[in-house]
């Protein structure tokens, strides 16, 4: 729609905090943004939604001076402003929290916050000043993080707080967040939104990119929809509903919740007893896990990130050694056995969709087709002879799989790097699910993925279940677990706090369990 509706219902006398006019940007042949215009009113939370690769991040990166627009102009508070680099953006009072955080892993929080905003040549004074300011901000917006922790030792949630602190430390009035909740737990997300609302009430302006319509409905005042690099609509949140937004975004009807018939669990496939993991620093990550997984069911593991779910997945995926007893299809397996790597598990019919597609699931510089064989490159059907792999076969196979999983574009000869996250995720799922495994381990299947793709991915997982396969689902998205799982186990501090049936529990109860509070009387 035209950007006159950009001022949805507001008197035109108010000067927009941000106004974009005819922004276009292309990378090589890809036009990421086409003639985009939009207005963001001061003191509002303005949502932006759109499919993977729609151009949201690019647009915001331009606003923050990370990329340079090919054409178009930017007005900040009515003033036309040149933003050639982030320095200018910061000067104009714009702060941005990128989807993939821009933090120095082995620096402390404090160092990260002052980086680029130091006063004076020597660090000491800057650090001192920052420390006091941080404690203030922490009090003001419940943004508490230990200033002396190293980033790599912080949970993503805390890392994100550092990013926000960075922006506030630079006196940002306009705060951009790109998919901030993609990696957060519900409680962390709620916390974040409390902070954002607080900031808005302070008169700050916030631009929020997300794939989650619920968040849009909850916190935004206005929402803009992007599609294929264009701004297709801007509406007042109160005048719209998720269905409408979903359609605007994907261009077709979308089911917002998974429809699945109830599960008929079969025999036990995977039995885990007293599984324990001690990491390299001698910290015990898993403190005796007992689980069993049956055919034809989806077991969801809920939990705040960093409570051992990842380790559990890694052990079952063969990326990590552990002690304890595991029985797969009745036969015992020693998890401490070093010969027991990913290859072995795969041969025994356990497929694994890792939590981090970009660092684990894919080789970004490999072609899509090479990635489709990744982990299964020893599979007989991929071999031409005793020595040589049958690349032609792999190409053919992967072409088909990508078609079936509606990977866009379905071109096996494209490097994985050049697919959007949503599509990267589909490639991983295609690889693992199409093996038709007895057990599927899935970590964060829809992180950073747009709703169209989410719907698709969920359907695939349910299909697999209905074919009588066992699925272990690991997600920080409570509602994903609630809507997908047939049985929910909650993990806290390396232990299973309890199991619940999705229809007999509530987010509240699960939330308590995830916080390690077992007495669930309060939940009833």
């Amino acid at each position, binding site marked *: 729609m035209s950007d006159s509706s950009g001022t949805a219902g507001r008197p035109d006398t108010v000067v927009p905090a941000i106004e974009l006019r005819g922004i276009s940007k292309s990378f090589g042949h890809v036009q990421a943004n086409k003639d985009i215009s939009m207005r963001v009113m001061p003191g509002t939370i303005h949502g932006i939604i759109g499919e993977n690769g729609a151009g949201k991040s690019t647009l915001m990166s331009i606003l923050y001076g990370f990329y340079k627009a090919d054409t178009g102009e930017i007005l900040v508070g009515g003033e036309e402003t040149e933003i050639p680099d*982030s*320095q200018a953006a910061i000067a104009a009072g714009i702060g941005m929290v990128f989807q993939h955080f*821009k933090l120095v892993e082995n620096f402390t929080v404090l160092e*990260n916050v002052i980086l680029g905003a130091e006063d004076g040549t020597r660090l000491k004074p*800057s650090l001192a000043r920052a420390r006091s300011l941080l404690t203030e901000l922490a009090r003001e917006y419940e943004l508490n993080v230990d200033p002396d922790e190293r980033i790599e030792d912080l949970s993503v949630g805390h890392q994100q707080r550092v990013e926000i602190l960075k922006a506030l430390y630079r006196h940002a009035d306009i705060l951009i967040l790109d998919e901030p909740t993609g990696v957060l737990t519900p409680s962390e997300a709620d916390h974040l939104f409390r902070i954002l609302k607080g900031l808005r009430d302070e008169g700050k302006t916030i631009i929020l990119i997300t794939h989650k319509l619920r968040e849009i409905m909850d916190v935004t005042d206005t929402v803009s929809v992007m599609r294929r690099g264009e701004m297709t609509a801007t509406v007042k949140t109160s005048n719209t509903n998720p269905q409408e937004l979903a359609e605007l975004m994907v261009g077709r009807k979308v089911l917002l919740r998974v429809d699945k018939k109830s599960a008929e669990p079969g025999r036990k496939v995977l039995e885990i007893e007293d599984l324990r993991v001690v990491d390299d620093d001698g910290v015990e990550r898993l403190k005796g896990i007992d689980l069993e997984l049956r055919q034809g069911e989806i077991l969801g593991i809920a939990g705040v990130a960093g409570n051992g779910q990842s380790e559990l997945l890694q052990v079952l995926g063969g990326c990590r050694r552990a002690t304890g007893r595991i029985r797969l299809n009745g036969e015992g397996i020693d998890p401490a056995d070093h010969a027991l790597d990913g290859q072995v598990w795969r041969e025994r019919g356990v497929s694994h969709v890792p939590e981090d597609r970009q660092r684990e699931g894919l080789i970004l510089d490999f072609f899509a087709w090479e990635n489709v064989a990744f982990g299964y490159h020893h599979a007989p059907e991929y071999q031409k002879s005793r020595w040589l792999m049958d690349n032609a076969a792999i190409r053919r196979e992967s072409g088909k799989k990508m078609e079936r999983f509606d990977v866009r574009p379905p071109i096996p000869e494209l490097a994985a790097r050049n697919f959007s996250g949503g599509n990267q995720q589909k490639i991983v799922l295609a690889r693992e699910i199409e093996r038709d495994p007895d057990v599927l381990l899935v970590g964060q299947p829809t992180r950073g993925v747009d709703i169209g793709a989410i719907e698709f991915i969920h359907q695939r997982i349910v299909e697999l279940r209905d074919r009588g396969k066992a699925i272990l689902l690991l997600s920080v998205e409570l509602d994903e677990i609630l809507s997908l799982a047939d049985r929910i186990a909650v993990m806290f501090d390396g232990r299973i706090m309890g199991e619940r049936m999705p229809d007999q529990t509530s987010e509240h109860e699960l939330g308590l369990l995830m916080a390690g509070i077992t007495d669930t009387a309060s939940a009833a």
Partner: protein
Amino acid sequence: MDFLTLLQVLDTTVRLATPLLFACLAGLVCERAGIFDIGLEGKMLASAFFSAAVAAISGSVWIGLLAGVTASMALAGVHGLASITFRGNQLISGVAINFLASGLTVLIAQDWFGQGGRTPSLSGGARFNEIKLPFADLLSGLPYIGQSYAELFSGHSILVYVGFLTVPLTWWVIFRTRFGLRLRAAGENPEAVDTAGVNVIRLRYTAIAICGLLCGLAGVYLATGLQAGFVKEMSSGRGFIALAALIFAKWRPWYALFSCLLFGFFQALSFRPDVVKAVTSLDVPGQLLDALPYILTVVILAGFVGKAIPPRAGGEPYVKEN
């Protein structure tokens, strides 16, 4: 081995460690900023030649020093152009610079002096002479402390003292100043620096300039401090040893000092078959003695030094759009 002999060995150690130290710190600054540099060797050589040549012509070692450092920084500039501006392969660029240096130096030397890639030998004000610290002679009498003072600490060329002072200086700059913070960040995650509103390109060029400067000093010391003139290829692999020392030092200034001294010490030992024999009481064949520094390095590396993790963004040109 008596104390005096020990002092002599250590004395040699100090002299041999100094050029390594300069080069090592040069590499440290550069690689901390995310630019790998295997062109230390070449820069050292170029600086060695130009310092000696200009000192010979002008008769002033200081003008020579200026010329040497300039030459080294010019080559560093080429490395910057290749690896920062044009996002080329930093390793190739380094290799190329080594070739350029060993070719250019001799050609120009031949063209200027016609002595076959050698400069006239320097004397008097055209070279750095050893400076005696105050009371050196006075104290040399009293055992141990006095001897050490006179033998070991006194009587080096000014550049040696500069070199050792550069260690704390580098440490301070890298870990205690704004510039250092940004420098390290640029080597770990340039995007963080960029989005924090700092110009990564300028930052890395500065680092490369410093690298050029220090490498320059290494060369100057070789040609005008340790020696009195340039001979073709006179850096003879020290740039690579410095590189090894840098990794050995895990990209830390004080460790760099230690590892360079270690290399120097092993070399010094290999010059003293008599000492080796006295200590180990078995006479080692010359060739083995010659390989000793390298063997010991490997042993120590494997035995005591753990994994060395280079700056995360090292070697990668900073590209945000492609």
